[in-house]
Structure formats: C-alpha cells, structure tokens
C-alpha cells in the first residue's frame, strides 16, 4: 500500500529536533518534546505493523534522483524490526536522558536533545529506505548528528574519542562503501533493494562481486565487524544516554541492519551462498565474537566492558544472517531486538550507578547492589539475556542461532556460539556477584540511592527483555517474513 506514514515517522523526529532548538530557553517545555515525539513515532511505526505482518509493504516514492535510483521509502519486515526497536526504545531513552542530564547538570542540553531526536529521524529513514542511495543518506546523517553527542563533554578525552569515531565511520564510508555503491550502480544499473537480491543474475565476474561484498561488509563500519570496531569503545567518552543510543537504539543497529540489507536484498541469499561468501563472513564474524569477548574480560571500566560486549553481540547478528539457513537467519534478525532491549538496560544501569555514586570501574562496585537494588537487579536480568538464559530474550535468539548452525551443518560455529556464551557469563556475572555479595571498601554516603527518573526506564527495559523472551512472536513473525 502507498502511504505517507514512513515519511511521517521521519518527520516527527525532525520536527522534535526543531522544537527543541526553538524552546532552547524554556527548559521544561523543551524536555517534554522528546518523550511526546517518541510516543508519536512509535505509534506511527506500530500502525504499519499489521500491513507488514500480513506480508505487505508500505511504499512511498518521492522522486527520481538518478535513472534507476529513487528517493523512496518501503517499509518491509526487516525495516520494521529495526524501526520498532528504535522507536520503542526512544521512549525509554528520552525519559532516561532527561533524568541523567538534569541530575548531572550537564551543559549544552539543547544541542544534546536536538541531535538525539535527529539521530532517531536518521534511524527511521534508514529503516524505511527502499534503496541503497536513500539508505546511505540517512546512514551518513546518523554519523554526523551523533558526532556532537560523542564529543559532548568537550574535554581532551571527548575530542580524541569523537575524532576516532568520525575517522572510522567516515573513512569507511568515503572509501570502501563509496566504491561498493559505485560498482553496484555500474553493474546493476540500480540501487534498489530487491527480494532475492539486486545482484542475483547480473553479468559480473565472481571476483568483482566478492570485492563488492567485502567493501559493503567493512564499509558499513557501524556494524563493527573487526577490524572496523575500534570506534565503538572510543565512543564511550559520550554521556551514558548517548551510549545507549549508539549501542541499542540507533547506531550499531543501523550497521547490522545495513549488512542484513546487503545480504538479503542486494546480493541475495543465493548469490552469497553461491560465491562462498557466507562461510567466509561467518569466520570473520566468529573471530569478532570471540576476540571482542576476550577484550571485554580484561576491561574494568564498566562501559568499556559493555562496549566490547556489543562488538561481540553484533557479530551474532551477522553470523546468523550469513549462515544462510532459514533458522539461523531468523535468529540473527531477532537478535537485533534481543540485544537492543538487554544492552540498553545494561547501559542505563551503568549510567544510573555513575549518577548515584560517581563510580565507573567494576572493581569499585562491590556491595553497590544493596544501595541500588533495582538498578543491579535490572543489570542482572540484562546480563542473563546477554548470556542467553531463559526466559530472557537473548535465549530465544541464541536458540535459533544454535539450531540454525546445526541445521546448516556448521559445527565450528556452533562451538563458537557456546564458547562465547561461557565468555559472556565470565564477564557479566562477576559484576552482579560483586554488587550483591561483595563488601564495600568503605561505607558509601547515604546519597547513593536510586534516582527515579533513571530507575523507571531501566526497569521497564529489563521487563521488555524478559517479555520478548516470553512473547517473541512479533519479531519471529517479522523475521520469518524476511527469510521466506
């Protein structure tokens, strides 16, 4: 069906950003804008769900950019997964941000909220893009508007981290991604997403297609497939709500979303398998999963540990897709949602701990669970989901992934998944253990207590992670639509 709603979803967030800028001086009104806009955006996205679940698409073709390239939106099941996750989590993140920014009395809050809203517009635009050209417009917009969020503190550390952030993301997109786009346009004469693959059946050599494929895989650096991962830990200099945005709501999700688009709708499952690219990518992803987990083990800064955990978890999504067995692909796709719900909980917790106690290092967090029971309880739930313990969401996606790799007959990757689960447990559980059973080195002041504006959103997302584990039908149904 043709509808203006995809554009509307983008427009809501853009208007929210403009409203934030206009209400610069009227703090309370300004802060109310983001939650209202996030609810509106979620409603718009949700209103398209029935059509997509029924197997339809929502289309909006605006105009032709070049022959074979339109500026166009098409809401399909894959886009719906991404858009649902990001618009739903924006609601929690917008409330959490207000609590966080107010509690720490941060500077430049108007810029912060305006950029935050614009990045949601970029996420929605990317999710609904009908072709690579439209997608990269929003992809690059997302890189740009998150840049001020990453350098938010404007200190030495902030400038250095944000520089790395931009160098990696822009460097990858102005080199290999650009080459991949130009080559695709030259080979196929179009940049549209086609079910079954735009490049399926084109007249081009296998070598060239292989090069193009890897240009995409590493060009979409937001997917953080090693060696394009180093920007993600560097971006940890940002305020915690931004980390949540980066890791759960928009940025890295955009990365893996783009990779899935390439696998499913640019190359197509048949071509990826036929060229042997699936297995090659699976090895790269496996390496990333294991290496990043080992990095995470060695980090004492809680946010850094979470960052490496994200690098590892993103490659689950990639691995699931490139195993090319239907069950594994479903697992990869729903892991986008499972990881988002759990990881945002973990980041919210890290921010809540920091706001309440000023602590960043895990070694200082002994006994903090008694002061912050809700926060650390939610952290435990999030950890279980990351490890893949039922009934949390992570269990469902890992279950599909494990079944899928068995179905594909790829035992090595089955082992990788199991080892990485052990590693996940090894770097997450000690945090909860120390928080609840450790003893504080010195008595914390009574000011260390839950902050409602932070605790409510993080408990909500923790509940979401469990709820998705118990009722995964929505995301599974969408994923099966894509794979079918």
């Amino acid at each position, binding site marked *: 069906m043709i509808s203006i709603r995809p554009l509307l979803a983008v427009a809501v967030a853009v208007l929210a950003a403009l409203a934030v800028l206009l209400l610069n001086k009227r703090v309370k009104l300004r802060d109310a804008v983001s939650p209202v806009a996030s609810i509106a955006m979620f409603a718009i996205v949700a209103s398209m769900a029935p059509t997509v679940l029924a197997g339809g698409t929502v289309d909006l073709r605006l105009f032709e*950019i*070049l022959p074979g390239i339109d500026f166009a939106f098409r809401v399909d099941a894959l886009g719906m997964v991404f858009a649902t996750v990001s618009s739903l989590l924006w609601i929690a993140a917008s409330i959490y941000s207000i609590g966080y920014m107010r509690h720490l009395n941060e500077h430049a809050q108007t810029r912060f909220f305006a950029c935050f809203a614009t990045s949601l517009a970029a996420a929605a635009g990317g999710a609904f893009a009908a072709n690579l050209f439209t997608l990269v*417009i929003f992809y*690059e917009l997302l890189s740009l508007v998150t840049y001020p969020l990453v350098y938010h503190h404007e200190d030495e550390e902030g400038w250095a981290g944000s520089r790395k952030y*931009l160098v990696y993301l*822009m*460097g990858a997109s*102005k080199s290999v991604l650009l080459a991949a786009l130009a080559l695709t346009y*030259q080979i196929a004469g179009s940049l549209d997403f086609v079910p079954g693959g735009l490049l399926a059946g084109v007249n081009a050599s296998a070598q060239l297609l292989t090069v193009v494929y890897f240009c995409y895989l590493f060009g979409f650096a937001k997917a953080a497939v090693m060696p394009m991962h180093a920007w993600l830990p560097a971006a940890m200099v940002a305020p915690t709500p931004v980390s949540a945005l980066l890791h759960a709501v928009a940025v890295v999700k955009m990365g893996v979303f783009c990779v899935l688009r390439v696998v499913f709708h640019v190359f197509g499952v048949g071509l990826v398998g036929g060229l042997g690219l699936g297995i090659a990518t699976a090895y790269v992803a496996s390496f990333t999963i294991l290496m990043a987990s080992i990095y995470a083990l060695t980090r004492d800064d809680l946010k850094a540990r979470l960052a490496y955990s994200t690098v590892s978890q993103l490659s689950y999504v990639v691995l699931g897709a490139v195993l090319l067995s239907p069950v594994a692909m479903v697992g990869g796709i729903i892991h986008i949602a499972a990881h988002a719900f759990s990881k945002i909980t973990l980041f919210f917790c890290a921010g809540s701990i920091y706001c309440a106690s000023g602590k960043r290092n895990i070694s200082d967090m002994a006994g903090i669970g008694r002061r912050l029971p809700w926060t650390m309880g939610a952290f435990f739930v999030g950890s279980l989901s990351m490890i893949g313990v039922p009934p949390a969401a992570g269990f469902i996606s890992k279950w599909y992934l494990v079944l899928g790799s068995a179905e594909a007959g790829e035992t090595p990757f089955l082992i990788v998944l199991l080892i990485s689960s052990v590693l996940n447990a090894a770097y997450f559980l000690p945090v909860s253990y120390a928080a609840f059973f450790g003893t504080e080195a010195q008595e914390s002041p009574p000011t260390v207590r839950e902050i409602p504006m932070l605790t409510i959103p993080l408990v909500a997302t923790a509940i979401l992670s469990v709820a998705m584990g118990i009722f995964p039908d929505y995301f599974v149904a969408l994923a099966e639509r894509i794979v079918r």
Partner: protein
Amino acid sequence: MAVPLLSLIVFTPAVGAAALMFMRNDDVVRWTALGVTILDFALCIAMLSGFDTSTYGMQFTETRPWVPTLGITYALGIDGISALFVFLTALLGWICVLASWTAIDRKVKEFMVSLLAMQALMLGVFCALDLFLFYVFWEAMLIPMYVIIGVWGGDGRVYAAFKFFLYTLAGSLMFLIGVIVLYFHGGETFDIRTLMAQDLPFQVQSWLFFAFLIAFAVKVPMVPVHTWLPDAHVQAPTAGSIILAAVLLKMGAYGFLRFSLPMLPEATVHYSTLMLVLSAVAIVYGGLLALAQDDLKKLVAYSSISHMGLVTLGIFTLNLRGLEGGILQMFNHGVTTGALFLFVGLIYERTHTRSIADYGGLMKVAPVYTALLALFALSSMALPGTNSFVGELLVLSGAFAANLAVGAAAVLGALLGAAYLLGMYRKVALGPVSVGLRFKVRDVNAREMAAILPLAVFVLWVGLYPRPFLEIIDASVKHLLAQVHSRGGAQ
C-alpha cells in the same frame, strides 16, 4: 528569432561596465553592479525557461557576418552543456558583487568594471559558436582577471598575477596554433559546428589533441601545470577566487568537451587512458597537497585540483555516466568551491588571518557562519544528500566501467577529501575558542546571507533532485558520445 537573447546576456554586463565608468559614488557603483548582474541572471532564467531539452542542437543561435573574407562570423548559440555554465556564470555574477561589497574598499568603480567585463567575456566564451570569436573572448578574459588579482590582491599579488598570466598565455599560444591548424585542415572555416563534422586524419588529430591538451590542462588545471593556481587563489580578492574556481577552471574542461571530444574523436579515444591516468594523478596528488595545508585558501585551492581531476576523469571515461557525472560535477564544484572561497573571504574580513592554526571554537562565536560552513564542507567532501555525491557516484560508476584501477584511485581521492575537509572543519569550528576569536568576530549579516543562501539551495537541490540539471545536458551529452564513438570507434 526576434530577441537576440544570448547577445543580451553577453553584453548586458559589458554595457553595465561601460556605464559604471561614469559614476562617482561608490555606493551607486555597487548597487548598479548588483542591478546589472541580477538583470543578467534574470535573462538567463528566461533563456533556460525557453530551452528545449529534447534536442542536442544549438539553440538561440545568432549569426552575423563579421570578417567575411576570412570566414569569421559573429555566431552565438548554446547546447545543453553550455547552457548549464551560462547559468552558473550568471548566478555567481551577482554573488561576486555581494561578496565584494565591503571587502573591496578602494577603487571600487574600477573593480566593479573589471568584474562585469570579466563576466561578459566568460559568458561570451560559453556562447561562442565561431572559433575566432571564442578565441577573442578566451584571450580577453586574461586582462580583467590579471587586473583583479594584480590590483586588489594580497601582498604577493604582482607575482601571482604575472604567474597566472604567463601560464595561461603559454597555454593559449598552443591553442592559437591549434586553431590555425584546424582552420586550414577543416576547410578554411571558423564555424564550430562545421568543424565538428570534419573528418581529420589521425595524424593531425593527434597533434591537435596535444596542443589543446596543453591549453586546456593549464586552465583546469591538471598536474603538473597546476602551480599557478594556489598562488593566484591565495592572492586574489574573494570575488576573484570565486570566479577563478567556479568559472575559469571550468573553461578548460569545457574546452575538452567543445573541441577535443567532438572534433578529434579518434585521438580522444586513442589517448583516453592517458587522460584517465593524468586525472587520477591530479585527484590523489591534489588531495595530498590539500591535506598538508595550514592556509584555508590554499586548502580549498588544492582541493579544487583534486575535484577538477574528478571532472576530467569523468569526461575521459567516454561513457554516459562518466560524462554526465563529470559535467554535473563541474557545476557542483562551481557552487560548492565558490561558496567555500566566499566563506574564507568572509572570515578573513573579520580576523585577517587564514591560518587554520589561528582558529578554534568558531562554532561558539559565529554559530550561523559555522553551521553553513559545515554544509559546504560536507558538500565538498560529497556527503550523500549533497550535490557532489550525485556527481561523484556517476563519475565513479563510469570510471569503474572504464578502468578499475583508475576508479580505485578516484576513491582514494574521495577519502582524502573527507580527511582534509573534516580535519579543517574540526580545527576551525570545534574545540575551545582560540585567543584571536574572543571578541572581534560577528556572525553573517543579511547581505552575506543573500550571497550564501542561493548556493546552499543548489547544494541540496542537486543533491536530492538533480534531474532538472541532468535533463538540460542529457541530449547534448548523448550526441557528443555518439560523435566520439561513431568516428573514434568504441573503446
């Protein structure tokens, strides 16, 4: 043909320049110059609205005998390719006047006269259909440009103006020889349309190709004959830099399109690989040089070499995407680099320094200026959604079809572009406010905004909806390709 529209477009600025000579008050001079250039721009819009995009033929043609014994006529006419540049020249005309409003504070009258004369001659180059007439406009352009750099330029203006003059004159000399050879081999005519239909022997084509190559390569400029450009840009006043970057550099590429490709098709096809390699060298070398600059103007100047390399690369891919991308990129480069020089000029007026090291935290001091600077810096690095990305994608796509290695080199140039432009922006706009910027910088005013906004509109318009622009050139480019490949053979 009732109204000789092209003659009006070409001679309106010339008449305006003559009229300015009789004025005394500087403000009257400025407003008159602005009025004349806006009138000229309006005539251009009228021309475009009557332009037929479905044909490759020359339109709005005017022919009057001039020196009949030598076969010289006064012939004007435009096809899709020249129409785009007539429009660009007229657009930048009034922007240049606005950019010089306060920047030029001595000999205002003389400056505006030079500026208008320059505009008339540039428009003449793009409209001329007679080789002799073309040559007259082409050579005469040197004089006002020499004056603009040499009189209103910076401290090293005399050296820079002289270098500019010598380089271009040497190039023009080769062009003159080429024109004479063409005259005798092409049936003793200067009519460009007739010459395009001639079938010259390959030997003659080769010699002419290299004569033209030298002439046009200096203008583009291509490495290694680019060294006049940074000097000229750094010393020229803002309006001079804008004209240089936005229009004069296009003349070289336009020369290739108007003469080398259609008149020397066999040589063009034969030497196209050489041209692709030269272009790739310019892209990478220009990018590396830009990366090393501390002077804002030099940075933009060297980036021009890199970006013009992308233009010649597109042209000599000799396929539809490459050519259309190259021509669109000429337009984009005019808009974007013109704007960047304008921005450097605006900030120089306030701070009197162009060293990047002297800047920092400009965002906090002049937020509107820095936000708009971001738009043009991003456009220059070809961010998706801006004008240059469309051109770049087309050129690269054409380049990959022609030669994979050359395409890869062009991608490297794109990466370098992101590095020097984002690096420059970060140092100038972000970070703590530098000492020199604490009190003396004001943000853009309404007049400056009037010069900036139209360019900003074109950045986004071409970036998101390039179709009207491609439609203008489409028929002509397809015809040009047919000319090249029917006689020069397919690649």
